[in-house]
């Protein structure tokens, strides 16, 4: 028993010190590194939603890039055009995007696999088209500038302000997703992923749970999209095209489909890697990036988390408490 206590104590100490380091980072690293870490947090939030939808629920949808863009545009436009403060415009953007997610779920209820993929690709294109051509509202293809988020605690240039906000939301998103996955919702989603007929025979209403999955991915993409616009200080339609979707797929694939920890790993690696490849390798960046994805699909289809789980280095993520 004492051994167990000791190991749990050292675990506690490790996680507390990790948390302190994370909190102290803005005072240690430069603006660029802080920007990248911010981007990691934002990608973690959006990919958690995508992993619930695709990794757990098995819904092969390309709608997340559009959700991300709708969240960004909604909150940024509310703030720039109607002068609604961020603490209100980001939640509004998130809820609006969650609602769009719910609407997308309706056709998705009847479609599976590649057909679902095709209509959601269509949806992402349509959304992009609206960003580009509804010039009166969205400012069109040139995008528009977004004011910084100011907490009033730190001096400009406000990178620290948004850092603590994204950190807090990312932590909440991780905890919330863990809870969701370990409840009957998580098990119902996995059952739907594995076999819809079996899920129904187990009294699972697949309509309800597909709607929950789409709404949840919309909610998280909406929040993170709003934060992304503020981080970039710019809202630009091409940030939300199919390449955005490919990046998000890459993150959850590299990290591990159907795993919260895998999402954290994948979002971190796939965010950092292009930045590391900048400079001398800029010209080859996309080739190297593509090669990485190929490597993972061929040699590690279960992702990094799945791989280290198989090696026995980490415990499996449970689907019950």
């Amino acid at each position: 028993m004492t051994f167990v206590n000791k190991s749990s104590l050292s675990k506690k100490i490790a996680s507390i010190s990790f948390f302190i380091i994370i909190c102290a980072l803005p005072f240690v690293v430069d603006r660029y590194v802080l920007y990248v870490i911010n981007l990691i947090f934002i990608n973690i939030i959006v990919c958690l939603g995508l992993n619930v939808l695709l990794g757990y629920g098995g819904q092969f949808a390309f709608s997340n890039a559009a959700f991300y863009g709708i969240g960004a545009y909604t909150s940024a436009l509310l703030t720039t055009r109607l002068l609604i403060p961020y603490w209100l415009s980001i939640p509004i953007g998130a809820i609006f995007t969650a609602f769009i997610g719910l609407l997308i779920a309706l056709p998705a209820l009847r479609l599976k696999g590649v057909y679902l993929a095709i209509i959601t690709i269509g949806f992402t294109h349509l959304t992009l088209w609206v960003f580009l051509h509804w010039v009166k509202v969205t400012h069109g293809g040139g995008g528009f500038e977004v004011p910084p988020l100011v907490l009033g605690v730190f001096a400009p240039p406000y990178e620290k302000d948004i850092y603590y906000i994204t950190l807090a939301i990312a932590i909440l998103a991780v905890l919330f997703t863990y809870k969701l996955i370990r409840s009957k919702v998580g098990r119902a989603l996995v059952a739907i992923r594995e076999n819809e007929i079996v899920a129904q025979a187990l009294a699972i209403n697949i309509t309800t749970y597909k709607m929950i999955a789409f709404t949840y991915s919309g909610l998280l993409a909406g929040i993170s999209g709003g934060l992304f616009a503020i981080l970039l200080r710019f809202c630009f339609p091409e940030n939300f095209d199919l390449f955005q979707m490919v990046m998000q797929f890459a993150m959850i694939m590299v990290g591990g489909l159907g795993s919260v920890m895998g999402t954290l790993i994948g979002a971190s690696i796939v965010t950092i890697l292009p930045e590391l490849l900048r400079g001398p390798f800029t010209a080859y960046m996309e080739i190297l990036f593509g090669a990485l994805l190929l490597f993972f699909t061929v040699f590690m289809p279960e992702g990094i988390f799945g791989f280290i789980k198989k090696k026995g280095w980490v415990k499996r993520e449970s689907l019950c408490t």
Partner: protein
Amino acid sequence: MGADSDHNNLMIKDVTIRFGGLIALNRISMEIKDGEIRGLIGPNGSGKTTMLNVISGIYRPVREDGGLVYFQGKDLLKLKPHEIAIIGIGRTFQNLCILKGMTVLENVLTGLHKTIGTGDFSFILSPRKTRSMEEQAKDKAFEILKFIRMDSYWNHIATDLSFGNQRLVELARTLVGNPTLLLLDEPAAGLSEAEVKLLHDLLKKIQQEKRATILLVEHVMDLVMEVSDIVTVFDFGAKIAENEPIEVKRDPKVIEAYFGKNEET
């Protein structure tokens, strides 16, 4: 409770199912009494699984063909598959349908979906209640795993188990929801002789202790003939016999369906 006028658990009347030009079920009627074990046999393609799929709401007779399916007085043709499961009809599948990536315990817990009576997001609103519900569910799951003598495997990834054990896990996942009607689609397929014996005892135990009605589709004749109260025989989508096991074994129509006509006479 639970029985309608004639103590019938399940009442099927004039059900026809067509797949294109093929008639998979041809005006089938059958009634199963509460607490009965009903065997359903017939050559491959005779419509046994189709019958189970009609009862569990996967296939539905078209309106022009008519047909009724009632379970404890409720019209099953008006219910969605998951609603049919909610009112107490559980089933297993011919091809193993263990949920991949789940442990044995998680598989069984998934079978308790309807019993975990908290809302989908109650873990935010009332975390304490949710936790106690989950604990109760786990207790129930362990109880059923003990019932089928699989409790020592609770933390194994279900798909890593032997074929026979996976069949048992699938049965446990269905049993844990306390179904009043249990549809079993070839539960003995691929089992060893010892495992079939275990299944035999288990079915009797389910009938006695869980008081469930069982509709058993099976090719392992010894098992069907030993456990069933009544055996129904299908051939080419039609019901050709329905009687006690001993009578069915002697029925010339059944023998013909399985072995062909005796040309000498």
